[in-house]
């Protein structure tokens, strides 16, 4: 039976692929989006992997937060090979000239061995050692090019960092171990470690990292070295990083981007799937006579199913193959656009796993979406030949519904199983399923509404036959309504959601944070400076409030006695145990504190150490009042009993600490102070100037500048977001075009019949205008609604920001949807207007 089925199948395909352009395009687009995103990710990761040594700065890296390595540790490292020491901290640089500028910088002090791998390139070209050397009593610095403008200096001018003076001798054009582009953090300044003490920036408790990079020289592998260091110095409290962790900081960023791209790819595939279903139904509806004839000639239903399944499978293979070819060339095409954001270029190549995964997605999607129309075609009765019946309606037999459920579950399962972030993928699949159901319901609603409006006599459309025809075409069986609402609606709602998200983020940046949010942050204030700092800043006009708090660096080690690594912690609050965080101590509750459980400690503290904790984090860690939490501060473990829980609104932008200890707990721990200042807009520069003049060690962060930095990052990302969202939209438009093309001959026929009955070209135009206009309007309204709800949920529930509704944007989307639908409709229908009546009316 299979051989016969195959023979008949291919005989029918000889007619060519013309009717399948949309089918092919839909599948190809989805496969290309998913495969392209994954290939891009792998190519970037491969790029990072092959540059791992320069990126890490060695074969193994040891990081210490509070101290330098001692002699014993150093010689243990040196036994494996060369060691390079560097120190990173955030600080301020300012021009030595009176009227010069200031800027937040990422200061990096390096020793003579730096870099162990790769080269630091500077402009004007010279060896790094010459740049950093002391000349005429002044040490040199290599600076990020952006600092020239910010500090209003030229190469050769002097700059001040902390208490030290440097000559800006060259700009950095390439820093081998720089992970993040300067647009995404602060501008870099490179100096020699020997010049660092003069800055007086290194103090007990400063936020800085001592980094030792080791290049192994054959005596030991990096793994062996790591093992030896861990074994010989169990209490060193250093963090060791190997080559596979070279890009740790940005890998999760990359994964998030990939995840996002994949999700949009899946949306495209889903939308394309609807196009597939539509194309298959249209094709099979046109084959109705053939199918009925085949049945009359004795072909069993199974044979019919097989014939068309073979055809669809053959065509799907072509579509998927086209998609894979496109996916394979995505990395070389897309990488130049990402260059700004990535530390290294991607590795151009073919990534079979990524492509195979996309192919599986394509196969499953084609199967899921073609099955229903195929199963229905199987049951076309032979009498269809004799009775002119409308296609559509009916439900395939149960067996096929079960198969459909299995395939659908397979598709969802595969999407979830192969995702890097399973939870997110599961949420997407659930969301997509809900969205499909919602859009389906909306489509049915639109059709019902059209049906009730179309009702002839005395109804809304009475006396307007063109309007009635349009309404009838929206709800007749086999109408494009469902397909268009589902696909274009889906793509469009993604676009609406993204646009509204951006609008909201933009609004937060330009309109500023909530009114009571601080405008400036100050860090690295030494304890003895706090009082002077407060009185100094309070004198600057425009300052409304100065808040200071002590900050101690510490790491959560135990949760109610259980080691943090072994504790059962909700992934949402896992960040709290990762690395060091700022802790605080205070006798009094912070001004903005909202204590939701327990009470603040009084002035009389016994021996017991108490702590006040963020209620959300406590919940995520399963902690209750009276239980304990332990932190490591400079190697000393401090355990405190939870005295109260605070509800922290991080989005307010005000200074907040997850953990605030009672003063007795932190007695003796080295601390720095940080401060927030609320001030009138425009006074920031004055405040900064005042502080810098007398406390050069203090680092200033203007909230506005930080937000601008964030916007830069978002700006680069939003291009990618827009590209991918438009892919989903293109898929929707394809489905629209397909759905409209499918009705082409029907429309020409209707136009002719209307003309016979005395309709002018205007009447016919009006009928089409109504049909497409109403379809576009319904789709646009539904998409705008769904997209707005999605964006609102993300902004208010996930980002926990204030919501701004952009009505104009929503209106634009609706109008655009109507226009696009009208254009698509008329581009396929224009000919129908001038169609010659006679040929269509002759007897067959």
């Amino acid at each position, binding site marked *: 039976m299979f051989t016969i089925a195959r023979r008949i199948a291919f005989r029918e395909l000889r007619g060519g692929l013309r009717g399948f352009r949309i089918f092919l395009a839909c599948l190809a687009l989805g496969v290309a989006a998913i495969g392209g995103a994954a290939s891009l990710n792998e190519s970037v990761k491969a790029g990072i992997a092959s540059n791992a040594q320069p990126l890490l700065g060695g074969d193994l890296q040891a990081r210490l937060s509070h101290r330098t390595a001692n002699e014993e540790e150093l010689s243990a490292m040196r036994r494996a090979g060369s060691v390079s020491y560097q120190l990173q901290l955030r600080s301020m640089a300012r021009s030595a000239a009176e009227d010069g500028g200031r800027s937040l910088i990422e200061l990096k002090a390096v020793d003579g061995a730096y870099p162990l791998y790769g080269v630091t390139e500077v402009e004007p070209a010279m060896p790094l050692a010459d740049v950093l050397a002391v000349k005429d009593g002044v040490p040199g610095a290599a600076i990020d090019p952006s600092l020239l403008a910010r500090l209003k200096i030229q190469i050769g001018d002097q700059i001040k960092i902390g208490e030290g003076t440097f000559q800006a001798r060259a700009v950095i054009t390439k820093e081998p171990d720089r992970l993040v582009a300067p647009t995404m953090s602060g501008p870099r300044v490179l100096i020699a470690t020997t010049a660092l003490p003069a800055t007086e920036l290194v103090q007990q408790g400063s936020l800085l990292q001592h980094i030792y990079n080791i290049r192994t020289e054959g005596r030991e592998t990096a793994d062996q070295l790591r093992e030896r260091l861990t074994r010989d110095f169990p209490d060193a409290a250093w963090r060791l990083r190997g080559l596979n962790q070279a890009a740790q900081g940005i890998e999760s960023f990359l994964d998030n981007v990939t995840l996002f791209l994949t999700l949009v790819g899946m949306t495209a595939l889903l939308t394309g799937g609807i196009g597939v279903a539509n194309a298959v139904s249209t094709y099979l509806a046109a084959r109705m006579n053939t199918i009925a004839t085949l049945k009359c000639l004795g072909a069993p239903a199974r044979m019919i199913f097989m014939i068309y399944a073979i055809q669809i499978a053959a065509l799907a293979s072509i579509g998927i193959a086209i998609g894979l070819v496109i996916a394979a060339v995505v990395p070389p095409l897309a990488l130049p656009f990402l260059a700004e954001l990535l530390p290294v270029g991607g590795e151009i190549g073919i990534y079979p796993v990524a492509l195979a995964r996309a192919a599986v997605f394509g196969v499953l999607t084609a199967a899921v979406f073609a099955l229903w129309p195929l199963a229905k075609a199987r049951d076309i009765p032979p009498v269809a030949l004799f*009775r*002119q019946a*409308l296609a559509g309606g009916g439900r395939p037999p149960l067996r096929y519904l079960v198969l459909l459920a299995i395939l659908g579950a397979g598709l969802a399962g595969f999407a979830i199983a192969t995702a890097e972030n399973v939870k997110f993928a599961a949420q997407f699949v659930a969301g997509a399923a809900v969205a499909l159901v919602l859009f389906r319901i909306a489509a049915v609603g639109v059709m019902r509404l059209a049906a009730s409006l179309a009702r002839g006599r005395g109804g809304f459309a*009475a*006396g307007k036959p063109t309007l009635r025809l349009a309404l009838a075409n929206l709800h007749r069986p086999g109408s494009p309504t469902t397909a268009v609402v589902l696909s274009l609606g889906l793509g469009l709602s993604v676009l609406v959601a993204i646009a509204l998200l951006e609008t909201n983020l933009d609004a937060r940046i330009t309109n500023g944070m909530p009114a009571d949010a601080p405008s400036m942050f100050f860090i690295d204030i030494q304890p003895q400076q706090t009082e002077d700092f407060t009185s100094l800043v309070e004198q600057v006009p425009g300052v409304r409030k100065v808040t200071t708090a002590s900050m101690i660096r510490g790491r959560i080690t135990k949760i109610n006695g259980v080691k943090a690594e072994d504790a059962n912690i909700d992934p949402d609050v896992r960040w709290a145990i990762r690395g060091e965080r700022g802790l605080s101590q205070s006798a009094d509750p912070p001004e903005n504190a909202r204590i939701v459980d327990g009470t603040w400690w009084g002035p009389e503290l016994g021996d017991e150490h108490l702590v006040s904790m963020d209620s959300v984090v406590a919940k995520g860690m399963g902690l209750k009042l009276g239980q304990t939490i332990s932190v490591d501060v400079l190697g000393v473990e401090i355990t405190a009993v939870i005295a109260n829980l605070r509800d922290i609104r991080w989005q307010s932008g005000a200074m907040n600490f997850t953990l605030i200890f009672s003063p007795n707990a932190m007695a003796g721990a080295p601390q720095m102070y940080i401060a927030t200042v609320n001030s009138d807009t425009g006074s920031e520069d004055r405040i900064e100037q005042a502080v810098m003049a007398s406390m050069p060690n203090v680092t200033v962060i203007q909230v506005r500048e930080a937000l601008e930095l964030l916007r830069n990052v978002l700006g680069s990302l939003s291009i990618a977001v827009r590209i991918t969202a438009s892919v989903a939209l293109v898929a929707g438009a394809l489905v629209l075009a397909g759905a409209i093309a499918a009705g082409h001959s029907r429309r020409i026929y209707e136009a002719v019949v209307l003309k*016979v*009955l005395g309709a002018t*070209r205007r*009447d016919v135009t009006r009928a089409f205008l109504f049909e497409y206009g109403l379809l576009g309007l319904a789709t646009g309204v539904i998409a705008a609604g769904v997209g707005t709800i999605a964006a609102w949920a993300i902004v208010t529930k996930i980002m926990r920001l204030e919501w701004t509704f952009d009505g104009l944007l929503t209106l634009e989307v609706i109008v655009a949807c109507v226009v696009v639908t009208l254009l698509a409709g008329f581009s396929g229908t224009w000919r129908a207007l001038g169609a010659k009546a006679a040929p269509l*009316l002759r007897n067959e």
Partner: protein
Amino acid sequence: MSVMSRFSADPAAIQLDGVHLTLEGPAGPVNILKGVDLSVAQGAAVGIVGPSGSGKTTLLMLIAGLERVSRGNVRIAGTDYAKLNEDGLALFRRDHIGIVFQSFHLIPTMTALENVAVPLEFAGRSDAFDRAEAQLRAVGLGHRITHYPGQLSGGEQQRVALARAFAAEPKILLADEPTGNLDGATGHQIIELLFDLHKRSNTTLVLITHDMGLAARCDRTVHIADGLIARDSLSSAAE
């Protein structure tokens, strides 16, 4: 001669003078009509017969204004088609011409009632649906008005088409083998209805048929052969 005298008294319902039609076929131009002169008086019934491919349907299309002559002149109810553009022709059809086809040509997404109401609605008649319903009753389909074409038998569909063609009380009714797709008994019913409506409303009827007996029921029978009128005879049945 009597034909000519009626013409001078009153403009003829249908007046064709030296009508030629040439269409581009796949193998070059095809001369379909090669000089047809025909004059039909208001209220007359004309049967058109002739071999397949002789040009009968083409002639009907010209009379309906659905096709334009290559040469010659078409004047219907005193109106010269050459002076009307496509939309003018559509409006003219709306007001003066009803057509019935062999394969019905109903709009599948509209009920029987809505199909019949369409031309009335185009004419802006406020009583479109009432008239449509009355017309459906007149063809014996009062119980089928909310059915869609797909839910009707062939004979019923043709009766809907007939009701639609008659709904606006056209001066001229054109029918192209209206029973070609129907069995004998059903066809007979349709023909009875057709002649009945024709008689009652003094409509000019042009009926294309293969059935000589049917043609003989008309006042006149026009024989077409190879794009020309071969014979034009008064029927014996006519008074």
